[in-house]
């Protein structure tokens, strides 16, 4: 764990206590079994707002505390541990980041205070195909008298059913594959012509597809300048990657802790299974991987906070390493638990099912290895 300030330590302890007591994994299970329409509990979300978590990224002048990405990561790690469901990552993390990166002062003033007080839920809509590729945008935005008209589809939009606004990456010129010709727009969830279809995914989290059928967007809803949004989009995505990695770290660390506990208590052949050297060595490997991964995850968040130049590399590093670790850890979680780990009533499966969607989000390990190599020039 990075050397934390006193405030960060306080926030972490509060977050850990709250998720453990108020929103442990059985609450997520309950939500899943009830098929809650929003895929989260409103009371949990309100508690997070009350604790100030929705304002962690937002400057004070827009009603937030501007404590930064590392602090947000500290909280996301704790919610990740218990799979706590909410729009925290999607809205107060990625949605807020989108406005902070690309919005004008007027736009921030208009939207961010609502993000902080929970009246606005802003989420990013980028993906169109089955695999992450931010250049492959074809959702068409045609010019109209007073703005744009959107026609096309987005998919795997996080927490879309709860959203009041979508930050949508659209194509204002060029073709799918071009870096030029993209624009970011803020679309009201109530817009005419916009249809949401919730997706039932393996992780029981809230996603939806969006269908745009001549959705009108005024000029005030354009974030940044027309046709040149790619640089902003990459910055937003890097923040999404770094924040998602923090949540992944929490989920994987909890899987590690569950496994370690099982190794210490499960008896087979007359001994606790953790005393079998082959398992002890696997636990040591996982611990080593976890510690190395944590450094990458925290380092990326710190780099964003410090405005460093190597943010893109570090975010790809963080997303890759947390992806590799959660992949390996979630498989070992099941394997080491054996038969009990295969049952739905035990929690291990929930962590495994959460792992793959997180790996795929904003680019999987292969995507970011390729990107890292390109950033390093080979």
């Amino acid at each position, binding site marked *: 764990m990075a050397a934390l300030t006193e405030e960060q330590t306080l926030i972490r302890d509060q977050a850990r206590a709250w998720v453990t007591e108020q929103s442990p994994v059985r609450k997520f299970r309950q939500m899943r079994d009830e098929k809650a329409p929003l895929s989260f509990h409103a009371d949990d979300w309100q508690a997070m707002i009350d604790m100030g978590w929705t304002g962690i990224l937002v400057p004070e002048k827009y009603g937030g505390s501007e404590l930064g990405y590392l602090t947000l990561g500290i909280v996301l790690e704790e919610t990740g541990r218990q799979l706590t469901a909410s729009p925290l990552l999607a809205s107060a993390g990625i949605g807020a980041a989108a406005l902070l990166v690309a919005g004008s002062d007027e736009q921030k003033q208009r939207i961010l205070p609502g993000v902080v007080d929970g009246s606005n839920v802003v989420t990013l809509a980028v993906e169109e195909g089955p695999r992450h590729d931010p250049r492959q945008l074809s959702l068409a935005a045609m010019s109209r008298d007073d703005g744009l008209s959107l026609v096309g589809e987005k998919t795997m939009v996080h927490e879309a059913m709860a959203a009041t606004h979508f930050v949508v990456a659209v194509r204002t010129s060029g073709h799918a594959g071009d870096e030029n010709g993209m624009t970011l727009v803020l679309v009201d969830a109530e817009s005419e012509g916009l249809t949401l279809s919730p997706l039932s995914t393996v992780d029981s989290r809230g996603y939806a597809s969006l269908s745009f059928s001549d959705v009108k967007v005024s000029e005030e809803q354009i974030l940044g300048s027309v046709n040149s949004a790619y640089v902003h989009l990459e910055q937003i995505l890097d923040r999404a990657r770094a924040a998602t990695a923090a949540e992944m770290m929490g989920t994987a660390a909890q899987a590690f802790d569950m496994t370690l506990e099982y190794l210490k208590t499960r008896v087979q*052949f007359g001994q606790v299974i953790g005393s079998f050297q082959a398992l002890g060595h696997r636990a040591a490997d996982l611990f080593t991987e976890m510690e190395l991964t944590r450094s990458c995850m925290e380092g990326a968040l710190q780099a964003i906070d410090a405005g460093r130049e190597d943010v893109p590399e570090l975010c790809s590093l963080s997303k890759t390493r947390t992806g590799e670790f959660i992949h390996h850890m979630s498989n070992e979680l099941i394997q080491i638990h054996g*038969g009990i780990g295969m049952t739905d*009533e035990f929690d291990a499966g929930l962590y495994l099912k959460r792992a793959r969607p997180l790996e795929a989000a904003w680019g999987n390990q292969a995507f970011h290895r390729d990107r890292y190599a390109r950033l390093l020039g080979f």
Partner: protein
Amino acid sequence: MAEDLTSFRTQVQAWLSEHFPSSLKSNAAGIMEAAFSENGLSADAEQWRQSLADAGYGAPTWPKEYGGAGLSDSQAAVLSGEMANVGAFNPIPGLAGMGVTMVGPTVLEYGSEDQKLRHLPGIASGTVRWCLGLSEPNAGSDLASLTTKAQDDGDTWIVNGQKIWTSGADRSQWCGALVRTDASAKKRDGISFLMLKMDQPGVRTRPIKLIGGASPFCETFFDDARAEKDDLLGPLNNGWSVVKRLLQHERQSQTGAGAPSGSGSAALSIQDLAKKYVGTTESGELADADLRSRLTSHLMATKAHAMTGSRIREEARGKVEVSAAASILKNSATIVAQVRSELTIEMMGNQGLGWEGDDFTPEELATVRGWLSGKAISIYGGSFEVQKNIISKNILGLPETTQKG
């Protein structure tokens, strides 16, 4: 010898043309689905089952007196070949649960004449379904530490305890259970193999839901359940040798890499699937070069596994003993199957993350379910770790150490 088979083939062809209802042609899945639905077998299927049973073709290599047809292995191969030719399917092994594949061969080997006559015909005719009660919550890989006990009360055995992973227990008429009959003996001693009826007040089953969804597995609870005195299979307190034989039957059935999860015969190869989801470069290579390397390694592992299976069959040709390399194949098959699932959901991207609904194709959803349920391959039937212990100890001759499953 070749002459014999030819005349047998002619005889089978005639029998099939007489007894196989064309309505059932190439519909194995439909038959079994109906069998386990509320309706049960269709009239045609029921008639076909009875024809098979009458001919002894449900378990064709078993002796005639126990419901089989007394066929040689070569004759049985001819029978199954001819049945495949006309699109016929033998539903009896499926109907009998663990009966034809596991319990029957063990009864044939260890049972008394009376036990064979009482139990085998019901299995061979597909009218009595069996489950197996082996694992317990605290006796998984370490099966020998089981605690379900059977006490002799003079007339019957009284059974108390809990089993887990009893596949099909909720639909079985009989259970073959490992029970402790001598609490004072060492772990592997004092265990016996007991056959008992499932339809009695002392037996309760509860289906287990798995991470991939519904499953055939149950928990089975014995609460003063009763078994007949003469339904103990093999010697008293020596059930361990019976179960070792049972597990051999089980492992042998798990050394193929299996069909691709969630894919019918018309499914694309994994490399074509990859091209479909990931796309290709101008020169026709998979667009994701990192995935391409890993996919290649997987295809090589798959080929190596298949070639090893062929090699072992060739080496073992004519020999009776199961090859020592069987333990290698189990883990190798596991890796091949599990890596294939992981790669498939990776290449499908967002489409490989669906749980249900129309936003995903049936193949995509089956891939996800198959990925989850396939995690069991490295756990059941000799876990990955137990197989490594076996290789290390039995095949390589390394000294025994603390073993983990």
